[in-house]
């Protein structure tokens, strides 16, 4: 590449009108969250014995996990396959994954009735439970993501540890600790990177296995034994669009030039992946002959059509076009469609497809439930903004040639 890119903390004012809106949405969510912890889940949500899982599981957890897939897809591309030209997107994707999974964990924490027993799966194992597998994998993967992010922290603070007041005496030890961490990590980081990819493929697919056990209650349009495969393929196909989506938003927010060339090349890889996903989705439909359910006009058939046409077919066609790959605006539209499509797919699988035998009325999320979900998304966005302002995450063109770095680890001090 001609101009060298270097990850740099963004320098801008934190507070903008948009940020104030996000803060208000986050506070609104926290109010309802307090209600859930004081009066119980039933006081805030519309969940009941017919619909035990709702918006929080479908969006905060399932969609959250899927949309954080940019972390492992870019790691596989950049680190495992050594496609160095994509290194500029790895840190932003890593940060999204790290924050995304953190909020997945928080989402689980608020949804389970006995949040103080969230550690139980660590010591009480049930190997036949898909949820157990998801839980353990996510716990390990969150840890791996934090380890993968550590080099960004050491890069930011080595030689720049300035603790205030009495803590000043700790400056030298903390700096030594960071340097030791940095040395250790640069030798072992590949272990964590591969582990991150393996853990991701495992739990992205097991998330699909979750609803297999509900077989008799699932709408035939979605119920298939290959649900785990479809979940994995959709997670892989949303990874790169999510990276493009947030890269363009970040560029706009921090007034940078979008990395159109890199994003366009990433976009070029999306179409084949989406194509494979679509092939399995439709192939499964024809083998099970579930297309007959599309002839009915109801919530299920409409939602299925949105999921497939808006979320897969249209963006697939768009990503095949050279014009789209060269235009940040069109790239953004196509990526947004894939992101929304996968979010809708998770909502479909966990809410729309779930049709309990004795449902008295359909489930619709309450205002409180939506507030908490929106609040979490706002909080995540705020934390992302704070992180890219504190840590060197987003790459900007650098005047002097950058030193070659591996695994996005801090470049050697010159």
């Amino acid at each position, binding site marked *: 590449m001609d101009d060298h890119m270097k990850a740099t903390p963004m320098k801008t004012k934190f507070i903008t009108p948009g940020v104030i809106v996000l803060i208000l949405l986050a506070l609104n969510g926290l109010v309802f969250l307090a209600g859930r912890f004081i009066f*119980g*889940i039933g006081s805030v949500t519309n969940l009941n*014995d017919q619909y035990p899982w709702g918006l929080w599981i479908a969006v905060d957890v399932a969609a959250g996990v899927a949309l954080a897939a940019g972390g492992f897809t870019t790691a596989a591309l950049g680190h*495992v396959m050594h496609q160095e030209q994509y290194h500029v997107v790895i840190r932003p994707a890593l940060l999204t994954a790290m924050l995304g999974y953190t909020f997945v964990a928080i989402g689980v924490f608020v949804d389970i009735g006995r*949040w103080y027993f969230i550690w*139980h799966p660590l010591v009480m194992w049930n190997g036949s439970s898909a949820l157990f597998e998801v839980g353990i994998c996510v716990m390990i993967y969150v840890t791996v993501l934090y380890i993968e992010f550590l080099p960004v922290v050491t890069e930011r603070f080595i030689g720049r540890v300035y603790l205030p007041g009495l803590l000043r005496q700790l400056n030298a030890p903390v700096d030594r600790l960071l340097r030791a961490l940095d040395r250790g990590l640069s030798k072992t980081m590949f272990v964590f990177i591969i582990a991150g990819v393996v853990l991701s493929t495992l739990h992205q697919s097991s998330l699909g296995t979750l609803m297999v056990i509900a077989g008799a*209650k699932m709408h035939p349009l979605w119920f298939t034994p290959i649900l785990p495969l479809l979940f994995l393929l959709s997670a892989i196909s949303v990874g790169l669009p999510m990276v493009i989506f947030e890269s363009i938003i970040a560029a706009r927010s921090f007034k940078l030039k979008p990395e159109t060339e890199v994003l366009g090349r990433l976009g070029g890889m999306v179409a084949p992946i989406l194509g494979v996903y679509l092939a399995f989705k439709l192939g499964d439909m024809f083998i099970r002959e579930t297309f007959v359910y599309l002839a009915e006009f109801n919530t299920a058939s409409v939602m299925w059509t949105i999921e497939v046409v808006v979320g897969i077919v249209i963006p697939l066609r768009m990503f095949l076009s050279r014009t789209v790959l060269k235009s940040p605006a069109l790239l953004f539209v196509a990526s947004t469609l894939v992101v929304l499509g996968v979010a809708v797919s998770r909502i479909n699988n966990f809410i729309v497809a779930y049709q309990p035998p004795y449902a008295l009325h359909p489930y619709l999320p309450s205002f409180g439930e939506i507030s908490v979900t929106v609040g979490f998304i706002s909080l995540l966005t705020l934390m992302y903004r704070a992180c890219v302002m504190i840590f060197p995450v987003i790459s900007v063109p650098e005047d002097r040639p950058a030193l070659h770095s591996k695994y996005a680890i801090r470049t050697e001090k010159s």
Partner: protein
Amino acid sequence: MKLPSRRAFLKTAAVAGGAVAGLSATAKAGPKNVLSPDRKGVLVDTTVCIGCRTCEFACRTAHGLATPPLESYGDKSVFSAMRRPDTGALTVVNQYPNATKSELPYFVKVQCMHCDHPACVSACIVGAFSKQENGSVIWDTDRCIGCRYCMTACPFQIPSFEYNKAINPEIRKCDFCITRTRANALPACVETCPVEALTYGPREEVLRIAKQRLVTYPERYVNRIYGEYEAGGTGWMYLAGREFADLKFPKLGQNPAPGVSEAIQHGIFAYFVPPVALYAILGAIMWMTKNRKEGV
């Protein structure tokens, strides 16, 4: 630039792989799913039940749940809408019309079916559910984290959750009166039933009685025992004078309730071979592409 040497790479990768493989030895732990030949079952003859709801009263009393006085259970107006078991009532009786004799409606008692292959036992993230040797499927409050996956998994939509409790909400469902049966007493509902609509005993014995009734009174029943094969067989089984679908029994296949989910789960984690293999393949790709870039 500094890269780990090839030897260091292999060494570290091997250690990590070994650690993952070591986990498989302990992964066998899980909830009990005992299928003893002596496991108990109950036959519910819906053609005998008179809808007195005394079983509902006995159940609440036996489980320390709040209940109105027994006299109030004669109130037939509750039958106007279908009811489901919940945290306050582990069993309920519903009424369905009888097409041939309208003065004799059918009554169906609903509670946990105590499956031979329970979906809740398979699904529970912490193994809080277990199938006991005497046939009861019970829940362990000391393990439960309140995730409600059991409710998602149960094909009969039985487990109920205390949504309006902030601390220690419970999953509630019929426990087959495990404390009573362990003390050699009958389940409360069976003991109290005034017309002997409920027959308690070893499942095989109960099934034999049911088959005998189908032979002796073919005109009285539809020729089927619900629960003999449904969801892989259940501890509680039903006889009826109307199609079971009309009595709002879920239509289920004969496969065990966990279905293919366990097969998928065990396939992915067969002795951790697939994950470790994937790890090795990715490691190999990483190593080779690295060398290519280095021009080695």
